[in-house]
């Protein structure tokens, strides 16, 4: 019967709405802990009637914790369930939270920051190149924001319910392979869109001045190589822009 259990709607909604603030007190000592405990206040109110017990529950959530902000919802749900079952081992919650940090961070960062976000943004950039009508373009931007925020909001809401349903077993579901098909869709879209931006821009600049197209190609190459070689974004950017302007000065005066 374990997997039949659901978090009451109002409590779940309370945690979901608070989860938007999970990173708001991010600090160098305990990272997400304040936001995490803040999200669990509705659970504390549900589980305990007296203030001392609520505070004791929330104190347990104040230890070091970090995760991807959307995927943290799995931990919120799972901890709610574990706490509800009142484990006999007092250190279980902390050990469980620590065990979730790695998977929640890795999957979320790969899926959202590394794939869905660039995919949606690059798709939006194609719109800038192709759509001349401003209202249509704004509509297209909104569509791209929806493409990003549908999985975002789904993970936040489903994560709480699934985490609560699975409790300590949630780690079994936190495998990056489970999210591979979503990653694939956005990765394909992102890679094709990026190729499109390059393929569209080179002839566009070449039409104005072939040297512009060459500078565009060189700056892509330079930026890629510089970034791999030395990670200073500021210095690399300044060097490439200055070099491009110098090429402009030289070629325009020949």
């Amino acid at each position, binding site marked *: 019967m374990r997997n039949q259990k659901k978090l009451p709607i109002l409590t779940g909604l309370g945690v979901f709405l608070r989860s938007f603030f999970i990173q708001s007190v991010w600090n160098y000592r305990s990272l997400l802990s304040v936001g995490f405990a803040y999200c669990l206040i509705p659970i504390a109110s549900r589980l305990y009637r007296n203030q001392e017990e609520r505070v004791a529950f929330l104190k347990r959530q104040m230890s070091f914790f970090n995760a991807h902000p959307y995927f943290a919802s799995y931990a919120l749900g799972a901890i709610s369930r574990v706490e509800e079952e009142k484990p006999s081992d007092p250190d279980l919650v902390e050990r469980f939270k620590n065990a979730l940090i790695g998977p929640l961070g890795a999957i979320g960062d790969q899926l959202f920051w590394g794939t869905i976000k660039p995919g949606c943004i690059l798709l939006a950039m194609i719109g800038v190149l192709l759509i001349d009508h*401003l209202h249509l373009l704004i509509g297209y931007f909104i569509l791209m924001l929806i493409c990003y925020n549908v999985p975002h909001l789904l993970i936040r809401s489903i994560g709480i319910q699934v985490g609560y349903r699975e409790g300590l077993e949630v780690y079994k579901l936190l495998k990056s392979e489970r999210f591979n098909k979503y990653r694939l869709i956005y990765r394909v879209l992102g890679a094709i869109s990026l190729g499109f931006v390059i393929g569209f821009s080179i002839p566009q600049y070449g039409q104005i001045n072939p040297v512009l197209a060459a500078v565009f190609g060189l700056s892509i190459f*330079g930026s890629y190589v510089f970034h791999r070689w030395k990670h200073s974004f500021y210095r690399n950017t300044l060097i490439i822009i200055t070099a491009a302007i110098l090429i402009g000065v030289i070629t325009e005066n020949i």
Partner: protein
Amino acid sequence: MDNIWIGLIGSLLALDTTIVFQFLVSQPLVTASVLGWLMGDLQLGIQVGFYLQLLWLRNIPVGGAIVPEGNVAAIVTTCLVLRYHSDMVYFNSVMVLAVIYGVAISYLGGEIVVMYRKFNVNLLNWVLNGLKRVKLLPLNLAPFGSILVYFTVMFILIYISVTVGDVLFKQISNIPVAWDDYFRFGLVAILGIGVGLVVSLYKQKDDRFLLAIGFLLGGIIFLIK
């Protein structure tokens, strides 16, 4: 539009970067478009956002990573370009110089975020002390206090950056108009730098094939268009 309004709108959008929601509205493409619309030139706002977007797209706000504040840079850059492009006479010059200025501001923004995160340790202590005294109020208030601090700090950064930018960019008319052509090369490089940074996100074997398909599609559609 007054600098105070730009600061307020900019810092409100900046909250989306890492502090609350994270709906993606803090991305330069969206931020610059919103500001362009509010300042009366949506099309130019979108154009500025297009050039800026890729510079900061690769930044991944994981853990304690200190990433340049691309959102604040986009606000400052867009505002300066919209104010000083002089009917496109100086578009390339203003755009390139504003991006360089914006990149410097993004560095400052990144450093300020470090200080802000250190400040949050005080809020953590406040919450812990509250819990020790069996009080939940500090925990309930801490997120909003932190948001208010971030909002205020970003407001001050944007306000000062735009005000200083106003002083600097008023001198733009001293640049010979002919030089604007040289700056066009810099503008193209800005997009190239962004593409070069983002390409590294797609380095698997299959990605090369997909990039090539996109490249061909882009070229063909350009020719048709």
